[in-house]
Structures are given as structure tokens and as C-alpha cells.
């Protein structure tokens, strides 16, 4: 007897997506992660636009990762034109990136994921019983937004970041206020870890996983670096690395009819990107506080449980707040140099930028003409890369939970989808198919 | 400027901070015509309620907290103290909010503002009131002022035209005037779908055929939609009215009522300070007036 389990419209994720699993008795016949977010074709619409407009337009791919899109876009454009942004610019961009990560992780953990563990439909319902936890989550989320406002000029779709630098630098009093908020954030993170450590385990999907993450040249982070590392199944080291410009070898994407998101495979296998991949690949770069959080959350690496992505996000939250505080203190001690954006001389060519968005690897690659207008643009988003992996994990969970009621299975599937923190608006923006 | 000793207390209230409304309670809401209700209001401060004075043709700024403020003519006659009546047409934000209020609810009122009708100039002379449609609202205070001080005026004539009897503001009240011997009250409708109307069925300017008017000795107060001005003014000029004996009440956007916010300026005058009552002579001398 065959049955179909569907989650028509997945709640508490960004964008419009659903899940369909077909069971034949206890065997799983098919799993589908369906994206029905309309195709906005932004890459196509970019064609002919001046390099100055690109990051503003492309950030509209997704609000939650808008800073990631902006900065990845700037990296790609600066790569194409050989623009050298100043060290201060890079420092501030790194800080902005942390802000987004803090905001995104706090939002995901407290507003989207945690309610599942405790059987609440939403953070609002959660807030009724656990007001302190909800407020703590909101405070951390706000902290991330404040960083983005101070550096990027706006919490969603930053306006201040341009090719070569910034429109304006943060004012000293803004940084001083931010430092105060970050100090509070340090304490909040500690409490957050304690709360998260008490959550019931989510133990229903185990399978060795391939991870992919950016290799940070120095500190653990998201913005710097241009080499990507693929970890073999079930391993925390010994992977292959390649340059961002060769990003196409990362993926041999195929468009599938049930979804507006294309699926990425590496050497024919699905792979996972995001916090869990990063923490696995770059664990030794984390601070002591973050490492303690790993212990506290009983996160074993490499992990074979996609639900651990939630724990990995919590670890990053701890690290990012600490790192952002150190950055702000440094900026305050050294003082901000009043500098104008680096000069830009457009030239024909292709540039690629890769970063770690909160949800994982993000690649932008543009080809410009000599007037600095877009000839073609490719964007590969983390959720697109994760799509095949999400389905893979759906299948595992369905197989491992064959004895469950449909209702219980449905919830598990939703939790897996949510653990990936999928960003559906992002996923429908993919590179063009190679002809 | 300190308020002089003989200035009524309310005026001191409204001059210390001219933007500060005083609260008033809605005493009655009378649904005269669809989307034209008559609101009777009384200041919660009873001394203020008793001492508040105004001239016919003046207006007040009426506030509905949260919705905002709008200039509304004081429809009641200054000769009747204690309460204020406002005939309000429901057109937008503030008036909508006012229509949601019930008896006993509170509004803010400040005023009175504007020049009002130049009653002193009309004393002892004839008064002709010509209203079309909703134009009756600002003329009503003048009408009752004249009737309540009947001895101070010579002839009092009212001509009022509405589309249908159902559209006539203050209908009962005005119909009861028709029989008065000391005033001429000519009520007319363009059409009477119900067939029960006992007054005239004709266009407003036709009312001029029913009375004798002495232009040299009469002031005409006109208010109504643009068509009314168009035909009535023409008729008055034909009769030989001097342009400064024709009075009209203007409407403009207004935010302060006290000559600061700039919205109500016409040409180089402020509707709130120099108006809302202007003579026809003013009107033709001020660009964009009508």
C-alpha cells in the first residue's frame, strides 16, 4: 500500500516550500523538497547594469542573508576589477558579517527551531511560558541587527557597503553603545547555551555526511578566504580543497521539475553546508569559550545527525559575539581612519566571490564588460547546495522512523528541514545551466 | 501679550498655548442627512462651557485624539450659550473618527477662530442668506443669531436649496421657520422623489423671484458648492449688489487655525485669520480664491 505524506507549506522558514514523501509500505519510494517560490530571475535582470548597482539589487535575493549577498557580491566585483579594499574596510565587513550571523542564528534558534523541541507552534507561544528565554533570544537577535545597522546602515539590505569600501564609517558613539550591547550579549550567550543544553535530544536521523566549507585564512569566520574544502563522508579532516574561481567543480547542478531550486551534487553525492560544516572543518580555529559550548551542548564532531546544525549555530553565536566585541574594542582603541572607498577602475573580466552565509557557502560570479556592466551573473546559494542533502536526510529519517505515525514522521521531517535553516528565496537563484 | 482683565477666562486658556484643545463631551449626535451629522458638544469644564463666546461664522478646531484635528464651523448661534453645535460632513480621517464616537465620548475643541460675519456692519439693515447644499452649515449660526436678535436687523431672508428633501440640512428646524412672519424662509429642492415635499421645487436662483430685495440696504451671505456661487453671484450683481456687501465663507486646508501653518493661505491672506468670511471684492482681488 502506498501513502503520501505531505507538508504543504512549511512554516517557520524563510520562503515558500513543502515536503512530499511517498511510502510504499515501510519502504520510502520518493522524497521531495519542493520549492514553489516564484522565480524572480534577478541574475538575468542584472545584465547590462552598472557594477555600482549590482550589490544593492542582488541583496534582494534574500533578506536574512542580505549582508552576505551584498558582501559576496562586492568580493566578486572587486575580484573582477582588481580593487584592493583597505584593511579597515575588510575588518568592518567582517564585523557586519558577524552581525548578520548573530541575527540569523538567534532568529533561527529561538524563533524558528527551539519551539519545535518544546512543542510550541511559535516563539510567541513559547514566550507565554518561557518569557525569559524568548526575550533573551530577541535581545541577541537585536544585537545582530544593531551591528548591521551601525556598520551596514540598515539591518536588512545594508545600504552602506559599496565597491571599494563604505559610504560612511560608524561614529564613535555608535561603537561605544555597541560595545555595551555586546558585553550584555556575552552574558546572554552563556545563558543561551545553558538553555539550549537542556533541550530534549533530536535523535532520529543518522547518516555519515559530506560537508563543505570555506577555509578561513586566519580567524574563524565567514567573510575572508577564497578556498573551499570538501570533507569526505564522516570525516572531520583530510578533505580536498579548491579555489573559489573553480566553484563549478563544487556542483554539477541539475534542475528538477518539482522544485524551483536546483540541486547540487559533489561527485554525484549530496553535501551539507552551513554551521555544522563550518564547525566541523574549522573547529580548531574556535575560541575556548566556543569550544566549551561544544562540550556543553554535547556536540560530537564529525556529526552524523543533521539536527546538530542547530547546536553548531549556537556555538557560532557564542564565538561571533565574542569576536565582534574584540573587533569593536579594537576599533575603539585604534580609532577609525577617515578614508574614502578604494578607487575603482572597471575592466572586462570575470570575478568570483565566495563567503560563508549564515546557512553556508555562497558564491557570486560576474562577468563584466569594459564599461563595468554585467555581461552575465551566477549566484549559487547555500540552500540550493543543501537541497539534495535535505532530501537525502528526509529519506534517512523516513527510513529510520518507519514505525512512526505519519503525524510523528511529519514533524520529524519538518524539524530536519528547519534545522537546515533553509532560505528558500535564496534557493531559487542559481547559476545558469552550462550548455 | 497678557490677556486683559476683561477678556473671558476661556480666551486666556486658548491664548497661553493656542494649540491646546480643551476637552468637550459629545452631548448628542443627530443624524440629519446621510454622512452629515449634527454633533452637540459641551466643554467638560462648566465655566468654560458657560463663558465661551463666538461670532456667527467663526469656526473651531475639533480634535479626535489619535485621528487629528479639523476646522469645523460653529453651527450654533452665539446667542445660545452652554453647548456648541457642529454640522460635520464625513469625508476623511478626522471626520470618520468623529463618526465612530458616541454620546459622552470626548473630543478636543479650541477656538473660536476666524473673523466671523461682520455683524456690526449689518445691524439695522437687511440680511439675505443664500445657501446651497451643505453650505447651510456655516450660515446657520448667522441665521439664528439674527433671529434671536431679531430687533437688531431689518428684513431677514433665507434662501436654501438642496438636491432633495432628504439632503436638506436642519430640515425640521427650517421648515418650522417658513410660517414665521418676521422672516422669509424660502426652501427649495431640485427634485422630490418622495412626493411629500411641500416647499418649492426649483433651482436655488429661482428663489430670487419670490422676494423683494433692496441691494443698497442688504448684505448677502452666500455659501455652497461652486455652482451656487456661479449662479447666485451673477444674480446678486445683476440686482446691483455692491461687491463688498456680498459675503462668502471659504474652505481651505488648515492645520493650526491661528495663522502659522501656512496651509490656508489664499493669495496673500490666511483663511483662518482674515477669513473664513470674505467679501466678493476680496475674492476677485485674491488669486485662487474661488
Amino acid at each position, binding site marked *: 500500500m502506498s501513502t503520501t505524506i505531505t507538508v504543504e507549506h512549511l512554516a517557520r522558514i524563510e520562503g515558500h516550500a513543502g515536503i512530499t514523501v511517498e511510502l510504499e509500505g515501510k519502504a520510502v519510494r520518493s522524497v521531495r523538497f519542493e520549492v514553489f517560490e516564484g522565480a524572480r*530571475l534577478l541574475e538575468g535582470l542584472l545584465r547590462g547594469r552598472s557594477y555600482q*548597482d549590482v550589490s544593492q*539589487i542582488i541583496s534582494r535575493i534574500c533578506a536574512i542573508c542580505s549582508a552576505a549577498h551584498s558582501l559576496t557580491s562586492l568580493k566578486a566585483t572587486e575580484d573582477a576589477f582588481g580593487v584592493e579594499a583597505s584593511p579597515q574596510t575588510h575588518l568592518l565587513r567582517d564585523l557586519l558579517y558577524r552581525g548578520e550571523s548573530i541575527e540569523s542564528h538567534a532568529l533561527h534558534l529561538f524563533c524558528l527551531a527551539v519551539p519545535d523541541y518544546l512543542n510550541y507552534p511559535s516563539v*510567541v507561544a513559547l*514566550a507565554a511560558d518561557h518569557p525569559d528565554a524568548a526575550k533573551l533570544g530577541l535581545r541577541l*537577535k537585536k544585537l545582530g541587527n544593531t551591528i548591521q545597522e551601525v556598520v551596514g546602515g540598515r539591518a536588512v539590505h545594508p545600504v552602506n557597503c559599496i565597491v571599494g569600501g563604505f559610504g560612511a564609517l560608524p561614529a564613535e558613539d555608535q561603537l561605544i553603545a555597541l560595545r555595551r550591547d555586546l558585553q550584555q550579549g556575552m552574558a546572554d550567550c552563556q545563558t543561551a547555551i545553558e538553555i539550549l543544553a537542556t533541550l530534549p535530544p533530536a535523535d532520529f536521523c543518522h547518516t555519515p555526511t559530506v560537508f563543505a566549507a570555506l577555509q578561513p585564512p586566519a580567524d574563524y569566520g565567514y567573510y575572508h578566504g577564497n578556498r573551499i574544502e570538501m570533507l569526505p563522508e564522516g570525516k572531520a579532516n583530510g578533505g580536498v580543497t579548491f579555489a573559489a574561481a573553480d566553484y563549478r567543480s563544487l556542483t554539477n547542478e541539475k534542475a528538477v521539475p518539482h522544485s524551483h531550486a536546483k540541486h547540487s551534487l559533489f561527485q554525484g553525492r549530496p553535501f551539507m553546508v552551513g554551521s555544522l560544516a563550518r564547525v566541523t572543518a574549522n573547529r580548531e580555529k574556535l575560541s575556548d569559550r566556543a569550544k566549551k559550548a561544544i562540550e556543553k551542548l554535547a556536540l560530537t564532531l564529525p556529526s552524523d545527525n543533521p539536527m546538530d546544525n542547530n547546536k553548531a549555530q549556537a556555538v557560532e553565536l557564542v564565538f561571533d559575539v565574542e569576536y565582534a566585541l574584540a573587533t569593536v574594542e579594537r576599533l575603539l582603541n585604534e580609532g577609525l581612519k577617515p578614508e574614502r572607498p578604494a578607487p575603482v577602475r572597471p575592466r572586462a573580466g570575470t570575478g568570483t566571490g565566495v563567503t560563508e552565509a549564515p546557512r553556508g557557502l555562497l558564491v557570486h560570479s560576474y562577468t563584466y564588460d569594459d564599461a563595468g556592466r554585467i555581461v552575465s551573473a551566477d549566484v549559487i546559494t547555500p540552500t540550493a547546495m543543501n537541497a539534495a542533502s535535505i532530501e537525502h536526510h528526509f529519506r534517512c529519517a523516513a527510513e529510520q522512523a518507519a514505525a512512526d505515525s505519519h503525524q510523528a514522521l511529519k514533524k520529524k521531517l*519538518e524539524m530536519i528541514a528547519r534545522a537546515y535553516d533553509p532560505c528558500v528565496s535564496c534557493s531559487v537563484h542559481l547559476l545558469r545551466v552550462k550548455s | 501679550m497678557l490677556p486683559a482683565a476683561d477678556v473671558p477666562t476661556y480666551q486666556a486658556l486658548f491664548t497661553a498655548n493656542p494649540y491646546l484643545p480643551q476637552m468637550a463631551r459629545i452631548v448628542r449626535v443627530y443624524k440629519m442627512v446621510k454622512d452629515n451629522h449634527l454633533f452637540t458638544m459641551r466643554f467638560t469644564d462648566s465655566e468654560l462651557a458657560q463663558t465661551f463666546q463666538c461670532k456667527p461664522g467663526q469656526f473651531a478646531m475639533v480634535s479626535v485624539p489619535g485621528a487629528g484635528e479639523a476646522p469645523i464651523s460653529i453651527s450654533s448661534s452665539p446667542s445660545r450659550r452652554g453647548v456648541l453645535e457642529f454640522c460635520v460632513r464625513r469625508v476623511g480621517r478626522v471626520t470618520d473618527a468623529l463618526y465612530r464616537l458616541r454620546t459622552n465620548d470626548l473630543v478636543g475643541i479650541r477656538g473660536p477662530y476666524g473673523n466671523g460675519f461682520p455683524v456690526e456692519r449689518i445691524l439695522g439693515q437687511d440680511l439675505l442668506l443664500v445657501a446651497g447644499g451643505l453650505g447651510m452649515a456655516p450660515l446657520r449660526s448667522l441665521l439664528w443669531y439674527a433671529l434671536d436678535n431679531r430687533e437688531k436687523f431689518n428684513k431677514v431672508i433665507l434662501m436654501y436649496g438642496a438636491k432633495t428633501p432628504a439632503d436638506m440640512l436642519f430640515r425640521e428646524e427650517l421648515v418650522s421657520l417658513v410660517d414665521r412672519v418676521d422672516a422669509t424662509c424660502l426652501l427649495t429642492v431640485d427634485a422630490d422623489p418622495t412626493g411629500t415635499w411641500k416647499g418649492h421645487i426649483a433651482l436655488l436662483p429661482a428663489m430670487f423671484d419670490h422676494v423683494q430685495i433692496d441691494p443698497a440696504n442688504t448684505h448677502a451671505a452666500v455659501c455652497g458648492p461652486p455652482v451656487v456661487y456661479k449662479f447666485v453671484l451673477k444674480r446678486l450683481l445683476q440686482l446691483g449688489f455692491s461687491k463688498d456687501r456680498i459675503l462668502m465663507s471659504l474652505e481651505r486646508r488648515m492645520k493650526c487655525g491661528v495663522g502659522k501653518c501656512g496651509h490656508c493661505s489664499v493669495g496673500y491672506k490666511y483663511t483662518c485669520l482674515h477669513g473664513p468670511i470674505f467679501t466678493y471684492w476680496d475674492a476677485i482681488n485674491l488669486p485662487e480664491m474661488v
Partner: protein
Amino acid sequence: MTGCAGDQLVMLNCEDQLLDVVAALDIRDFLMASSGNDEECPLDVALVEGAVLTRRDEEKLNRVRERAKLLVAVGTCAVWGGVAAMDGGRDGDRARLLAETYGPTGAAYDSTPARALHEVVKVDFNISGCPIEKEQFISALSHLLNGNAPLFPQYPVCTECKMRENNCLLIEKGEVCCGPLTVAGCNARCPALNIACVGCRGPADDANTTSALAMFGEKGIPRDDIVRKLRTFAPMEGPGV
């Protein structure tokens, strides 16, 4: 509908007011924030984000319209079409763009040219912005809760820019700043950071596009560039709702 979810995110970003918002409202259906949604009940107010880009969007919007007493378009996508409608969405090119992006399967996707909500259903109020401004959102909600219409400035960004005493990028630096044509409400966010306005909030009520095009033309900027720039977030001239 289809968008980047930025406006919902802004709503969730009202951290300080979020719990008050929730207390003041009876939220029945908020997919991004909750899984306990009632997708059938009648609604007093529906806040709708995103542009209509699929037949599915259109059906859904029609359903929401039937359910809601008031429908509020939230965000530039909903109000004007947003970036997906850029350059008119290159409607002529759509099939080709789809095929280019998704290969042969692309043709089968449910995909229609981008439309603003008002092109599909009656919209009662607009809260524009890409994304919307927190303050405007909270203010609109507060007014709606009291039965009053939301109150927003109609004038352009320039006005707020001057109120903030910013330097003028258009006059002093000759940049293509969309401030004179774009509706205010962001407190001239970008010019305050020395960044020319890109018009993310959509056109001001009374935008004089003809004169602005001539003005930029005099600065030697090719007309096509300006037109495309002005049409990034919204058609240049559009209906006020």
C-alpha cells in the same frame, strides 16, 4: 507572495515591540513565524508581502482578499512589483530567462510576469519600502488598531534629506540620486551615509519624472541608464492606491 521576506523580517526585527505587537493583535496566520496557522478564518487585516509571480501566488492572494476586511500591501514588491518587476520584468524575455536559468525544465515552471498586488486585487493601504521601515510598520499597525488609516509622508526623500541636513549628492557630486522621485519615510537613510538613493521605496506621489530625466541628461548621463536605474524597484509612474 514572492519576495525576499525582508518585510516579514523587519516585523520580526521589531524586537523591542514584538511582544507588544503580539499582545495587541490576534495573529491568525504568519507562516514565517508560526506553524499553528489558521488558513481559513476571516481576517480583519491581511498584511501581504511580495509580488505576484506565480499562478499559485495569484490564487492565494485572491483567497486572502476574500478573507480580509483590509488588505495592506507590505513592501515595495507588494506595492510596486519590486526588483522582480525591474525593467518591467523584461517580460518579453521571460521565457528565455527561465530557460537560461533552469534549462529545459524551466519552461514548465509556474511563472508569470511580476505584478504588484494592486494589479490583481483591491489594496486598501500600502506600506512601501525595500524593506519597510520598522517605525512605519509599527505606526501603521497602531493606527489601524484604532480604526484610523495609516499616515505616511507623500513627499520625496529630498525633503527628509534636507531635514537631516545631509550634503546633497546630486548637486554637490552629480550622482544619480533617486531622492527627488522617491517617496520619503526612510529618513533619507542612504544619503545620510553618502550613498545615493536607489529608490527602494518606490515613487513619490507627485514624482516629476520628465523633468528629472532632463536634469540627469544635462549632467551627461545616458538616458537609458537613468531609466533603468529609476525602474529598479518600481515602474517610473504608477498608480497611487
